[in-house]
């Protein structure tokens, strides 16, 4: 059984190299935690991935919390989260400092405008990919269209929209059979 320090260190390492999205990270987790260190069985890991995806927050952090909790209870969960989050946190802090200092330098402003435009392209691409995967029935299209119209045209409150669509899902899919 690993110590809290060991849990923290392994997640620190994984947090520092966490580039390339959830799926490449999961293979990293698999290699470090299941294959190399044998802290979890394959089945336990799969369960952790499933739990990570159905709980709020970033799935990869959640899977880490599951692993930490599984190994050492609530303290293990904290150690795993702290390790995984720390590298990104420090880097963001550095970037935020640079951002505040140099925001008004013209060249930096141009770089940020270029990046801002790219982020919009990125978001559009996420919409298309998520849409292909999730909007596959007429009912789902109605939810998607409803979410768009209510937020874009009517400026409805997003939390209210999430609650409303959850209730809609329950009435449509959850009751009868």
């Amino acid at each position, binding site marked *: 059984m690993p110590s809290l320090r060991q849990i923290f260190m392994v997640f620190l390492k994984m947090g520092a190299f966490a580039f390339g999205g959830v799926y490449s990270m999961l293979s990293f987790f698999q290699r470090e935690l299941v294959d190399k260190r044998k802290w979890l069985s394959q089945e336990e890991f799969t369960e952790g991935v499933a739990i990570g*995806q159905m709980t709020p927050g970033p799935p990869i952090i959640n899977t880490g*919390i599951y692993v930490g909790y599984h190994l050492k209870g609530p303290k293990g969960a904290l150690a795993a989260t702290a390790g995984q*989050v720390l590298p*990104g946190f420090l*880097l963001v802090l550095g970037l935020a400092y640079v951002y505040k200092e140099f925001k008004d330098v013209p060249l930096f402003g141009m770089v940020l405008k270029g990046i801002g435009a790219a*982020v*919009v392209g990125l978001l559009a691409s996420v*919409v298309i990919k998520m849409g292909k995967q999730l909007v596959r029935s007429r009912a789902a299209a109605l939810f998607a269209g*409803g979410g768009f119209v209510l937020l874009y045209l009517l400026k409805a409150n997003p939390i209210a929209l999430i609650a409303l669509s959850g209730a809609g899902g329950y009435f449509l899919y959850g009751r009868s059979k």
Partner: protein
Amino acid sequence: MMLLQLFGVLFMVNLFTIGGGYVMLPLLHDYFVTQFHWLTNQEFLDAVAMGQVTPGPLTIMNAFIGYKVLGFPGAVVATIGSYLPSIFVVTYVTKYYLKFKGSRVVDSVFKGIKPAVVGMLAAVAINLGGTSMVNPATVSIAVGSFALMTFTKIDPTLVILGSGVAGAVLL
């Protein structure tokens, strides 16, 4: 007071968004840009970019927002507020996993929420596009990064760094 508000909003947003990352953007945008006016559209885009180029989930962008609004304490409070809901819920769910597994109620609720979020995200993308796509150069950068992200497997970090260079050259 603002620290408490920052913590409360991030705790709530992260508690209500399953899937993390992009799913939370419509909510964050509504609070920080539309309601509180703590950030402009451009600053919100910058925050997304920072979250994207750093390792780990996009959620770390909240530390950037916290720093931007309230300095170092803001960054710390934002980070704790963002990950605390996960710690509570995951440890609880892990304890009672079998009860939740395949629950019809939970499944059906999310069958409604997931597509709605896609529509909401589209609305936010259009709103932000209005701020950032202001001339032929920025429109080409947006269209180019959209195409790269949709049709290739390129890492988003590279797209963002490349578009920064393109911005410096073209704008």
